[in-house]
C-alpha cells in the first residue's frame, strides 16, 4: 500500500511539470489541444495527491508503526479524530495536506472556468502547478511522509498533547484553506500580468476566492487564539509569537485588498496598488510557512531546524523576482484612469484604511524579523516582545477602527457638508458621550476609553445605515419593517454583509480592549479549605482528585466559586500527565459569561505539604472576541452568497473585454 503513496507522489510531480510546460507552450503557440492537455494533467495531479493522502491516512488509521511518520505523530491509544488530525500534525503530512488542498482548489478553478477566461487560464494552470510542484518536490526529495523505520516501532510517540484539543482539529485546516486560498487570486494576478489583460475580469473572477481565503484566514486566526486561550494556560489568547504573526500578516494584506479592490471596481483607480496587495498577500503566506518551518526566528513554539528553510527562501525569492519583473513590464497598463478628488471622500478613506492595515502588517513584520536584522547589522540579536507589538499596533488599530466607521458611509468623490452632517453628527456625538460617561465612571485606561468611544461611534454609523435603508424600503415598497430589513440585506449583500462583518470587528475590538486593560490576575499557594479573593470572586480550595486513564493520568482541584457571596459554580482546573511523552499539560477550567471569564489554572501541587498553587485570571468581556468572530463569519457568508447581479456584472465584464480584444485585432 505504502508504495502506492510514494509512486503517486512521484507521478504527481511529473504530471505537475508536464502541466506547466504544456500550459505555457500551448498558450504561447496558440495550440488549444495542448492547453486542454495541461488542464487534464492538473486533474490527474489532484487525483494522485489525493491517493497519496489517502494512503497516509490509512496508514495512520491502521496504526502502521513501521512508517516513521505514523510512529512519530500517533500512538495506539490515540483516539480516531486525533489520529486523523495527525495527518496535518507533522511536517511531511502538513506539506502533503497543503498540496492536497491546493490541487483540490485548482480542480475547482478549472471546472469553474472551462468555458471562461480562455486567455488567462493557461497561465493560471501554470502558476498553480508551479506552487504544487514546489510542495511535491519537497515531499519527494526532502521530507517524505512514507519513510520507513529501519525497525518497525511497537508503539508510536503520540501526537503532541498540546495539539490534542478540538480547536486544534480545525484550526490548522482552516488556516491552510486560507493560506492556500490566497494562491488562486495570485495565480489570476500572474495570468493577468502575463497576458496584459489587466481589466476587471481577473478581479471579478477571483473576488469570491479572495473572500473565501479571507474567511478561512479569519476563522483560522480566531481558532488559533481560542486554542491558545484554552490550552496554553497563561490567561491570554495572543502573544505576538512569530507563528501567530505569520498567520496575521496575510490576513491584514488580504483585508486591505478586499477594501481597495472596491475602489478599482467603482472608480478604476489603484490598479497597481491592488496588484501589489494580491502579490504581497501570497508572498506573506509563503513567508509565514517559511517562518514556521525554518527556525530562523525563535518562537515559543520552537519549530526547530527542519532543513526546509533554504528551499522556502529560494522559492520565495524566485516568486518575488518573477512578479517584480512582471509588474515592471506591465507598469503602463497598471496606471489608473482617475485620481482622488478630496480628502473627504470614500476613496480617500479607503486609501487611509489600506495604509493603516499595511502599516500594522509592516510593524508586525519588522518586529518579527528584527532579531535576524539586528544580528546581521550589529552582530547581536535584539528581540522585541509583546510590548512592542501592543505599543505600535494599538494606536494604529484604533485609527483603523475609526476608519471602519468613516469609510462605508462617507460619500464617493467629494463629501458635501450635508453628507457629513447627516452621516456623522449623531454617531460622533454618541461616541463622545460614551467616552465622557466611562471616563466619569472612573476608567483611566486611555486606550480602553478611546476604543469604547470609537466602538459606539462605528456601531452608530452602521445602525443608522440599517435603519435608514429599512425605512426607505418601507416607504418606497410598502413593506413591513422585518421584511424590508431582510430584503435590504438580501438585495445588497456585499454592502450589508460588510456592515455585519464590521459589527463583528467592533465586538472583537471591545473584547480585546477590555480583556487587556482590565484583566485581573492572582496567584496563590494554598492548603485545602483556604480561599482566594479575586475581584468579586471568592474561590475555595475544597479537594484534589486523582484519575488515571490509558493515555494520561491527571489531578483535578475542586474549587468552589462564589461571586459577591453567592455560590455560582464548582470548577475543576486540571493538570494532566501524558504518559507517552512524559509531559505535563495544563487543562484550564473556564467559566465564561458575557460579562467576564473566570479562568483557573492548577499551577502545581505538592504531595508532601498538600500545597496547591492556583492561578486565577478574570478576563472581562473576552467572550465578545469570540462572538465577534462568529458575527464576522455570518457577515462573510452573507457577502459570499451569490447574487444574480454579481453574475451579470462578471458576464458583462467578460463581454467588454472580448469586444475590446476584437476591436484591437481589427
Amino acid at each position, binding site marked *: 500500500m505504502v508504495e502506492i503513496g510514494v509512486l503517486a507522489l512521484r507521478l504527481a510531480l511529473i504530471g505537475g511539470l508536464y502541466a506547466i510546460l504544456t500550459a505555457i507552450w500551448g498558450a504561447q503557440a496558440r495550440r488549444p489541444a495542448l492547453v486542454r492537455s495541461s488542464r487534464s494533467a492538473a486533474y490527474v495531479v489532484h487525483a494522485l495527491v489525493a491517493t497519496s493522502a489517502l494512503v497516509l491516512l490509512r496508514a495512520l488509521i491502521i496504526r502502521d508503526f513501521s512508517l516513521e511518520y505514523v510512529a512519530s505523530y500517533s500512538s495506539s491509544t490515540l483516539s480516531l479524530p486525533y489520529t486523523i488530525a495527525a495527518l496535518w500534525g507533522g511536517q511531511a503530512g502538513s506539506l502533503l495536506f497543503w498540496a492536497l488542498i491546493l490541487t483540490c482548489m485548482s480542480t475547482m478553478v478549472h471546472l469553474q472556468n472551462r468555458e471562461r477566461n480562455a486567455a488567462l487560464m493557461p497561465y493560471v494552470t501554470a502558476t498553480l502547478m508551479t506552487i504544487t510542484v514546489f510542495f511535491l518536490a519537497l515531499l519527494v526529495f526532502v521530507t517524505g511522509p512514507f519513510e520507513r523505520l529501519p525497525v518497525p516501532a511497537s508503539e508510536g510517540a503520540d501526537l503532541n498533547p498540546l495539539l490534542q484539543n478540538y480547536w486544534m482539529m480545525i484550526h490548522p485546516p482552516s488556516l491552510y484553506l486560507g493560506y492556500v486560498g490566497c494562491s488562486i487570486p495570485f495565480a489570476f494576478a500572474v495570468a493577468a500580468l502575463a497576458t496584459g489583460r489587466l481589466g476587471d475580469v481577473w478581479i471579478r473572477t477571483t473576488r469570491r476566492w479572495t473572500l473565501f481565503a479571507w474567511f478561512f484566514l479569519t476563522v483560522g486566526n480566531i481558532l488559533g487564539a481560542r486554542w491558545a486561550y484554552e490550552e496554553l494556560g497563561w490567561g491570554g489568547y495572543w502573544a505576538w509569537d512569530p507563528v501567530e504573526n505569520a498567520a496575521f500578516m496575510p490576513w491584514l494584506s488580504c483585508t486591505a485588498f478586499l477594501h481597495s479592490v472596491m475602489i478599482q471596481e467603482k472608480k478604476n483607480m489603484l490598479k497597481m496598488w491592488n496588484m501589489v496587495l494580491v502579490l504581497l498577500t501570497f508572498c506573506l503566506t509563503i513567508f509565514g510557512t517559511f517562518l514556521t518551518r525554518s527556525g530562523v526566528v525563535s518562537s515559543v513554539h520552537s519549530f526547530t531546524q527542519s532543513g526546509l528553510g533554504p528551499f522556502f527562501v529560494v522559492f520565495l525569492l524566485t516568486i518575488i523576482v518573477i512578479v517584480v519583473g512582471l509588474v515592471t513590464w506591465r507598469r503602463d497598463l497598471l496606471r489608473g484612469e482617475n485620481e*482622488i478628488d478630496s480628502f473627504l471622500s470614500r476613496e480617500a478613506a479607503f486609501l487611509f484604511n489600506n495604509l493603516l492595515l499595511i502599516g500594522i502588517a509592516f510593524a508586525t513584520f519588522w518586529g518579527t524579523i528584527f532579531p535576524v536584522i539586528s544580528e546581521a547589522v550589529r552582530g547581536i540579536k535584539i528581540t522585541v516582545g509583546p510590548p512592542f507589538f501592543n505599543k505600535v499596533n494599538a494606536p494604529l488599530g484604533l485609527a483603523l477602527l475609526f476608519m471602519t466607521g468613516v469609510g462605508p458611509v462617507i460619500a464617493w468623490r467629494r463629501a458635501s457638508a450635508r453628507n457629513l452632517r447627516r452621516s456623522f453628527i449623531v454617531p460622533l456625538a454618541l461616541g463622545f458621550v460614551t467616552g465622557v460617561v466611562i471616563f466619569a465612571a472612573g476608567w483611566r485606561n486611555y486606550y480602553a476609553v478611546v476604543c469604547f468611544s470609537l466602538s459606539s461611534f462605528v456601531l452608530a454609523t452602521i445602525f443608522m445605515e440599517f435603519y435608514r435603508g429599512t425605512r426607505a424600503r418601507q416607504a418606497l415598497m410598502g413593506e413591513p419593517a422585518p421584511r424590508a430589513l431582510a430584503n435590504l440585506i438580501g438585495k445588497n449583500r456585499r454592502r450589508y454583509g460588510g456592515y455585519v462583518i464590521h459589527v463583528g470587528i467592533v465586538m472583537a475590538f471591545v473584547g480585546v480592549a477590555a480583556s487587556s486593560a482590565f484583566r485581573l490576575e492572582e496567584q496563590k499557594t494554598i492548603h485545602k479549605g483556604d480561599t482566594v479573593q479575586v475581584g468579586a470572586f471568592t474561590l475555595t480550595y475544597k479537594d484534589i482528585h486523582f484519575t488515571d486513564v490509558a493515555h494520561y493520568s491527571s489531578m483535578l482541584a475542586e474549587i468552589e466559586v462564589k461571586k459577591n457571596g453567592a455560590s455560582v459554580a464548582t470548577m475543576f482546573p486540571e493538570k494532566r500527565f501524558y504518559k507517552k511523552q512524559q509531559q505535563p499539560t495544563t487543562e484550564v477550567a473556564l467559566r465564561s459569561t458575557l460579562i467576564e471569564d473566570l479562568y483557573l489554572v492548577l499551577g502545581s501541587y505538592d504531595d508532601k505539604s498538600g500545597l496547591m498553587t492556583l492561578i486565577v485570571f478574570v478576563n472581562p468581556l473576552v467572550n465578545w472576541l469570540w462572538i465577534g468572530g462568529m458575527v464576522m463569519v455570518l457577515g462573510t457568508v452573507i457577502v459570499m452568497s451569490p447574487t444574480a447581479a454579481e453574475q451579470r456584472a462578471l458576464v458583462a465584464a467578460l463581454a467588454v473585454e472580448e469586444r475590446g480584444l476584437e476591436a484591437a485585432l481589427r
Partner: protein
Amino acid sequence: MERNHRFIIGAAIIVVAVAYLVYTGIRETSVYYLTIDEFLARREAVAGEGLRVAGRVASKSMDWNPATLDLKFRLANFEENDGVDVAYNGVLPDMFAEGRDVIVEGTYVGGESFHARTLLTACPSKYEAEVAKN
C-alpha cells in the same frame, strides 16, 4: 497636481507615524537575545539590562520549593561546564525539567546571579518527535 500633493502628504503622515511608532517601540522594548555562551562571554557588559538568554537547565541543579514557588537552577551551556545561577519565583511551566532547553528573561545582577522574570520552555515542536525505540 496639487490634489495629488495633498494626498502624498496625507499618506506620508501615516507612513511617518508608523515609522515613528516602530522606532520608539523598538528603542523602548527591545531586549538582548543571547545564547548562554554569548552571555557568559560578555556578562559584565550587559549587567542590569533586559536580557533573554537561551541555555539548558543543568542536570541535578534544580531546586524547587513548591510551598514558596521559589525555583533555583543553573542555566548551563550544552557541555554543562559553565553557566549562571538563575533565581525565579512562580509556577513551573509544564515543559520545564532538567536537561531541557529554556529561555530565561530577566536581568543579570552580577556575580553568579540572574533574576528571571519569565521562563520560556522551548516545547518539542509538533514537527519533531522522538520515535519510541524498542
